[in-house]
């Protein structure tokens, strides 16, 4: 099989995974207005739990330490990743969402992210510290007799199906009464509460669902690339997801897809193979982060709705099923 095809398939997998991250942050920020500056931490929780559950039991004397080591299959390990990411998200939400001020929320998420980063890095026994998990078995390779190349193609299918389901669910959530209530909280928390909406509960729901999306993306990431270390989920990575959502268009899942294609795939991949300038291997990644940051600020300044804006709610377009109601509405609106 041609290496270009495998490379393109790899990009498609990344694209699908970033879509999932985009949907997750969109549910948190685009739907409910939660400033989650530790989004990537929940990806890591999902990824680590998946990896530690999928790996065989740690070999004594190998100097590689991790908990669990259950040799679980893909669905079971994924489920554990989902539960873990959701639980950690609920814990952070419990502290952060009690207060109404959005800057407290941002501080708590940022601080929890830093804290979890330090704990996972320093507790070597947990997930092998700063070295991170390695050699996580690729799922389905044994059962379907896949080699390194066919695995990539097969994983396009796996991640694509999961991504499509999550996209469908996110869109359903957006249109549901629950999603509408979340958007009401986003627009004006006091008004929403005055109308009897429990803002804490609504934002908590959005927080946990978003974290579950992050956890699924994390599990898919580690299943695909077989390794995860703290260097791969620094605060800068959270920012890539923020940038893709806001440049694509917050509040619109299609915007998240467009953003993840432009920012996470096209821009990041296009700059990956640039030669190192002046013998400094860090210069290109540094410049890339600077450009992503500038792009985001410029977008917020001149096109805050993003490339694919959230559609304006047209209340009279809400379908009224009853024929009588439709006539009443028509009379009220048109005055006939």
């Amino acid at each position, binding site marked *: 099989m041609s290496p270009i095809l495998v490379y393109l398939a790899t990009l498609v997998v990344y694209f699908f995974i970033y879509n999932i991250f985009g949907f997750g942050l969109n549910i948190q920020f685009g739907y409910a*207005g939660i*400033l989650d*500056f530790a989004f990537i931490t929940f990806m890591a929780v999902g990824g680590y739990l998946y990896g530690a559950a999928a790996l065989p039991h740690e070999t004594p004397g190998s100097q590689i330490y991790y908990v669990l080591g259950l040799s679980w299959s893909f669905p079971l390990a994924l489920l554990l990743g989902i539960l873990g990411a959701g639980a950690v998200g609920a814990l952070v939400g419990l*502290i952060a969402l*009690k*207060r109404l*001020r*959005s*800057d*407290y929320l*941002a*501080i*708590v998420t*940022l*601080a*929890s992210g*830093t*804290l979890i980063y*330090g*704990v996972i890095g*320093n507790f070597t026994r947990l997930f092998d510290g700063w070295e991170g998990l390695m050699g996580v078995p690729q799922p389905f390779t044994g059962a379907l007799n896949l080699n390194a190349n066919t695995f990539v193609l097969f994983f396009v299918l796996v991640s694509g199906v999961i991504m499509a389901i999550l996209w469908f669910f996110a869109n359903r959530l957006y249109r549901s009464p629950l999603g509408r209530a979340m958007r009401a909280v986003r627009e004006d928390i006091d008004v929403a509460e005055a109308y009897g909406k429990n803002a804490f509960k609504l934002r908590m729901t959005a927080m946990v669902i978003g974290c579950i999306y992050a956890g699924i993306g994390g599990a898919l990431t580690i299943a695909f690339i077989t390794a995860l270390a703290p260097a791969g989920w620094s*605060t*800068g990575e959270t*920012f890539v997801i*923020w*940038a893709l959502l*806001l440049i694509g268009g917050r509040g619109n899942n299609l915007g998240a897809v467009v953003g993840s294609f432009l920012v996470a795939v096209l821009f990041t991949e296009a700059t990956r193979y640039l030669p190192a300038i002046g013998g*400094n291997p*860090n*210069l290109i990644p*540094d*410049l890339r*982060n*600077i450009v*992503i*940051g*500038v792009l*985001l*600020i410029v977008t*917020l*300044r001149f096109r*805050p709705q993003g490339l694919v804006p959230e559609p304006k709610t047209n209340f009279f377009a809400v379908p009224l099923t009853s024929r009588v109601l439709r006539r009443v509405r028509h009379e009220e609106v048109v005055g006939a």
Partner: protein
Amino acid sequence: MSILWLSLGFGLVTASILALSSVGLSLQFGVTNYINFAYGAFLSLGMLLTWTLTRPLHLPFWLGAALTIPICGLVAVVVDRVVLEPFVRRGGNLLYLLIVTFGLSLILDNIMQAAWGVGFFRFAVGQGADLHLGPFQFTVAQLVIIGVAAAVMVGVHLLLTRTRLGKAMRAMSDNPALARVSGIDTKRVTMSTWFLSGCLAGAAGIALALNIVSFQTTSGDDLLFVVFAAVILGGIGQTYGAMLGALVIGVVTEVSAVYVGSAYKSDVAFLILVVVLLVRPQGLIPALGKA
């Protein structure tokens, strides 16, 4: 017992560094009413600029530090005018300003990393000799940090109570619209506040670098949420609250390090932050209408 006195002494040093940084953050928050997540980058800028001026450029340390502090202030003013003010003028949602400062921290961190590299740095001046003061033991550098921080706190107090600028800042902090119609030049006060905030961050960065001896471009960000803990404990936007919060957080983290190990000092700060947010979110000295 002696180890407790020793850690209490370290606590005073940490509290001094935190006081410098949290007063800078709190002053700016009081006047502009949004948190600057890029504040850690200004701390790092202070350390790295002083390093460049004193190591490769061979200036004496005091001169390097004295030049660095106003440069940090100017950078803060430029960042505010160019990046943040357009968003403030447009008004609307506070959320976007927070995202912008978050993005700004990433941009500044990466600029510094590109310019200075990823290695560790240290100043030419060391910690100095150990001095015994009663039960305490300080290095010369640590005594200088405490002295400078105390002097700056008195200076900030005088500025806020005795000068027109300080009174204008307090007025804007209480009610920006009322301050504007009372004839206060809010643009000038905002610029002065950012300058002051940048200067304090630069000074705090230099003090932090002196205390931890070896530092890197991310050292400022590492302290950032301890600063947040101090600011929120004191009462957000309250300058005297920030001083009090810095003292409490500094002493508690250092003394607790005796019992839980120094690797978990910042976790203790996080714990305090969580407890404050759950039990008394308005802080020790609440500001009206801000929490």
